[in-house]
């Protein structure tokens, strides 16, 4: 049953994406409605498939010849995150786009980006993965430059060049893989890799793929595009970029290849561990000095991505589970933070923390949303961020890496300090005179903030024994199982 649904994850967003620009303008604004309905439908579908497995052969071609779309607990978790954030972001967009032109083009790009990410989550073909990755990436370049202000264009150009370089590394990696093993079907490739002795060429392909996906994920030596691109985009797009795009295209694809195809060796694990620790510490240090609200959030994204990469790099079942859990949580609280920063910018027109002050009195919902997000990212119980960070620290200790566990604790404290500064500067304290006439954001924005706040609270329940086995351990088992079997259901 769930297998026959798989093509719809691509057809719904891609179909709507091409349909919306054709509809033209009218008073009821079909673009808003269709985008919200489409992402809502995707969310319903993905919740239905959550935890299930299934396989769809595109065009009916058998396994190694045709492209296979496959569902497993990890992909279905990614699909749910993409659709959930997509719904919140598209509800938020309804009013956030008031100052922009080209509403239907915005939704078109937005839905194509979702289609690309869904494709990356589902496909079992390396070249097909590249195609979907480019679909999502190119849509996101256009979305970053969407408001067409001088600085946004510049950020968009920089993002397109650097991320495009990442894509070329990935394409070269695929070419080298095909040159050596004559296949791009992931299960078949995994099988051939396991049989063949490790050669220099295959390590070369691994380095190319690793560099490409690290650029997409924004891990620290490859992070230069991220702090420009995330603040430049419209708020709902920043929420999508930071909440899910860097994970779906970067970390998820990387983890899928490293664990399920290349069968993670200890050396690779250490490399991932090092990149993760570097991003975790470097990201937070760079974030502390920032006065631009969204730019600071972007640096914190690098830091939190570092936590996830670190947990994956441990390679232990507990580490992988903690990494997946933190990935889910980060999607919820970081998009909440970006949307609340967008709400502040919508009313005040500035992102400079020094200009804000005392907004709590005028914008209670936005202020509550940002407080929930801040406490969650800083790891304060009982919010979701606390539990996943705790699990990551446990996993570090269990793997005998006490130094990294201590670093994770210190970074967490620095994160708390950085967000307390934001709360004090923007939301608490005396209300500045120029903000006395401020109003709370419109209802549709409040609605998506409420949805994400609820998600931040509800996701902490995932740590409970019954739910943990069903959602997190099943997804972790996919990565822990090693290379994917060629004929199996995966």
């Amino acid at each position: 049953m769930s297998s026959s649904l798989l093509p719809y994850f691509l057809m719904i967003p891609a179909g709507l994406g091409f349909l919306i620009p054709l509809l033209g303008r009218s008073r009821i604004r079909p673009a808003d409605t269709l985008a919200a309905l489409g992402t809502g439908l995707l969310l319903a579908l993905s919740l239905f498939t959550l935890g299930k497995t299934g396989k769809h052969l595109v065009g009916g071609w058998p396994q190694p010849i045709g492209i296979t779309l496959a569902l497993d607990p990890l992909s279905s978790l990614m699909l749910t995150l993409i659709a959930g954030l997509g719904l919140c972001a598209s509800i938020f967009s309804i009013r956030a786009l008031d100052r922009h032109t080209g509403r239907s083009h915005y939704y078109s790009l937005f839905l194509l980006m979702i289609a690309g990410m869904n494709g990356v989550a589902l496909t079992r073909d390396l070249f097909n993965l590249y195609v979907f990755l480019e679909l999502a990436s190119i849509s996101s370049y256009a979305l970053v430059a969407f408001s067409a202000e001088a600085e946004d264009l510049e950020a968009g150009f920089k993002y397109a060049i650097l991320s495009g370089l990442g894509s070329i590394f990935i394409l070269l990696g695929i070419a080298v893989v095909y040159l050596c093993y004559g296949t791009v079907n992931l299960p078949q490739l995994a099988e051939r890799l396991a049989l063949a002795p490790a050669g220099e060429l295959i390590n070369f392909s691994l380095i190319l793929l690793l560099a490409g996906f690290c650029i997409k994920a924004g891990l620290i030596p490859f992070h230069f595009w991220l702090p420009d691109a995330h603040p430049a985009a419209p708020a709902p797009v920043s929420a999508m970029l930071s909440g899910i795009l860097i994970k779906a295209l970067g970390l998820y694809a990387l983890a899928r290849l490293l664990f399920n195809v290349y069968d993670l060796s200890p050396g690779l694990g250490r490399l991932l561990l090092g990149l993760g620790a570097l991003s975790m510490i470097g990201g937070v240090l760079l974030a502390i000095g920032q006065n631009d609200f969204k730019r600071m959030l972007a640096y914190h994204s690098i830091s939190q991505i570092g936590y996830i990469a670190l947990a994956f790099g441990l390679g232990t079942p507990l580490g992988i589970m903690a990494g997946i859990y933190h990935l889910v949580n980060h999607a919820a609280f970081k998009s909440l933070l970006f949307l609340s920063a967008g709400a502040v910018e919508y009313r005040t027109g500035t992102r400079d923390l020094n200009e804000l002050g005392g907004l709590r009195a005028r914008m209670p919902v936005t202020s509550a949303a940002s407080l929930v997000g801040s406490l969650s990212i800083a790891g304060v119980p009982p919010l979701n961020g606390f539990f996943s960070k705790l699990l990551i620290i446990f996993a570090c200790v269990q793997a005998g890496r006490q130094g990294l566990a201590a670093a994770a604790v210190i970074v967490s404290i620095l994160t708390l300090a950085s967000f307390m500064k934001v709360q004090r500067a923007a939301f608490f304290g005396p209300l500045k005179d120029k903000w006395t006439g401020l109003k709370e954001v419109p209802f549709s924005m409040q609605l998506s903030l409420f949805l994400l706040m609820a998600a931040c609270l509800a996701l902490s329940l995932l740590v409970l024994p019954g739910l943990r086995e069903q959602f997190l351990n099943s997804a972790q088992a996919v990565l822990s199982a090693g290379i994917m079997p060629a004929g199996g259901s995966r």
Partner: protein
Amino acid sequence: MIIYFLILLLFAVGLYGLLSQRNLVKLIISMSILECAADLLLIAAGWRANGSAPVIAAGQDAGQFALSSVDPLPQAMVLVSIAIGLALLLLLTAIALRLYHEYGTYDIGEIRRLRG
């Protein structure tokens, strides 16, 4: 073997251009050169000495065809990759034009306002 060396050279030229050039248009050209290098590597991966074009003739045996023809799969991939490259090229050109309207120059040194 020489073909791989030439592809490497092309890739190096593209990468050098991307890292050293300060003109937006030259950056876009470097990006295209890099794409060409990746596409050529894919084509080279499917190449075979004295291979025939991968078009199956009427009445030709499939096994015999597979023995004589070059590998058609990378060629299909390159077609897709060219289309993707074109999309990226158009987007970059459009952004560069808008930047030119904003600043009146293509030099990234003069238009850089963002902090790294």
